[in-house]
């Protein structure tokens, strides 16, 4: 697998340099440990909203730092959650009296490292809360397992909590809002190809020319089922069914539909899939009130897509529509 890199060990650091150069009006990058911080952080009187995780999912999370979304992002090595000291550095760089909310995707590594960081920050007298997002319906939930993964819903969660923080909500309020979003967002993914991590010689899994992986995560893990290639109609129908029946979403529900590319899927295909999802939801009487289409939470060059549905109410819609100014999401400013 070919990559535009110099050395697998410096990929993340070098990439952050490019991010900083490209978006100096919105964010800055601090080194050692590497963190991405809103250019105007700490913002007095505002809750800091911080997320992070392994790199390779760009624009998540660094591309969502800025006005109205994340206060800071903590990038780990590719597909490896960041260490507690990096998370702690992000907390310290951005957190004032209003406190901080840590958005943690539900992976053992992320949970453990953020947990430690939260303890360290609390020990320094900072008011830090954590929420864990686990929206992937591919994984059956159970108290005996690692549980569901955090995937596409993370993008929506970061936007909505960021907007709440921006308007001045208290940490209690932002945390409660986050839990509400987590309670009503569901996702599913499918892959046509596997990603290759820079330090590995080979793709993360092998798929034949006539196979797809259904129910994949964002780290090149194989999915829950390997099936034959199907038409876009069939694939999207299966994905919609999986997501809708899980929460479940019901007739008359207002939703945000997020059609996400895993990175390597051409936009012409992604919009095609989005159109199918819109039609299938309309057939079920589910009302798509907002949509997001594009590569927002990716898995390197993986071809594939995910669908995320978030049940909306007036508050969530208003927060979704609120101004945002980040490298990857920008409106209203």
């Amino acid at each position, binding site marked *: 697998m070919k990559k535009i890199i110099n050395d697998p060990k410096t990929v993340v650091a070098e990439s952050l340099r490019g991010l900083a150069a490209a978006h100096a009006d919105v964010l800055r990058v601090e080194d050692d440990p590497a963190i991405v911080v809103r250019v105007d952080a700490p913002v007095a009187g505002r809750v800091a909203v911080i997320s992070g995780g392994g790199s390779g999912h760009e624009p998540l999370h660094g591309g969502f730092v800025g006005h109205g979304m994340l206060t800071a992002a903590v990038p780990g090595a590719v597909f490896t959650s960041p260490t507690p000291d990096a998370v702690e550095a992000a907390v310290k760089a951005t957190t004032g009296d209003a406190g901080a909310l840590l958005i943690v995707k539900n992976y053992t*590594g992320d949970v453990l490292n953020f947990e430690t960081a939260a303890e360290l920050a609390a020990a320094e007298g900072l008011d830090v809360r954590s929420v864990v997002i686990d929206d992937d319906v591919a994984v059956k939930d159970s108290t005996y397992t690692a549980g569901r993964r955090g995937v596409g819903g993370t993008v929506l969660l970061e936007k909505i909590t960021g907007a709440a923080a921006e308007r001045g909500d208290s940490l209690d309020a932002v945390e409660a809002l986050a839990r509400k979003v987590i309670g009503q967002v569901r996702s599913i993914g499918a892959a046509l190809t596997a990603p290759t991590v820079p330090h590995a010689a080979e793709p993360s899994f092998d798929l034949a020319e006539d196979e797809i992986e259904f129910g994949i995560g964002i780290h090149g893990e194989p999915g829950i089922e390997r099936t034959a290639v199907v038409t876009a109609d069939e694939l999207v129908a299966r994905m919609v069914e999986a997501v809708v029946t899980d929460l479940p979403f019901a007739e008359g529900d207002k939703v945000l539909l997020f059609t996400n590319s895993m990175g390597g899927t051409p936009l012409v295909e992604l919009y095609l899939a989005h159109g199918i999802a819109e039609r299938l939801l309309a057939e079920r009487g589910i009302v798509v009130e907002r949509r997001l289409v594009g590569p927002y939470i990716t898995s390197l060059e993986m071809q594939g897509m995910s669908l995320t549905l978030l049940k909306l109410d007036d508050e969530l819609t208003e927060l979704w529509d609120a101004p945002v100014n980040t490298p990857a999401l920008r409106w209203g400013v």
Partner: protein
Amino acid sequence: MRGAQGETCTAETLAAALRAAAAVIAEHRVELIDLDRAIGDADHGENMDRGFTAIVSALDTATPETPAAVAKLAATTLISKVGGAAGPLYGTAFLRASAKLGDAAEVDGRLLVEALRAALEGVQARGKAVGGDATMVDALIPAVSAAEEAGDAEIATILTAAADAADKGAESTVDLVPRKGRASYLGERAKGHMDPGARSTALLLRAFAEAAK
């Protein structure tokens, strides 16, 4: 980990054992990546190599005076350099072991076994995995039991017993349906693959055992 008398472990011998472990991990980096690629995210070898390379660097610049201080240096280095699941779990293991070692300048077999038990308890406290979940715990549980059974033996004997048991424990993960860590997402599909963390635990214990000879 042969001490001056061949029966205890000092700060120096523990540091040497960690250097030996780093070499073993580097050697098995690709194997661990491949194990993790099959059922996880293909980074375990990279993570462990990054962590143990950092331990060697740390030992190059600091000279901790007690075995506990060496273990603590390893713990903090792993916690701050590795990330992922392995960083906090192995970090906690060394941290708990360090606490158990206290300020002893020399560690005998009995104290070593207690430290191993503490390491296992730390991993389970943090990761909530039990035996049979197909994680590093499946290598650690039999290793600690074997070490305890070896009792008052020489350190090398104790660690060899632990390493042998860890090998078998790692092997046992091949037939399990994982319930913790990334492999749990795969369910039945993960069967037939060895857990990378169980394998790295076995590799570390073998490196320690060899260093103690």
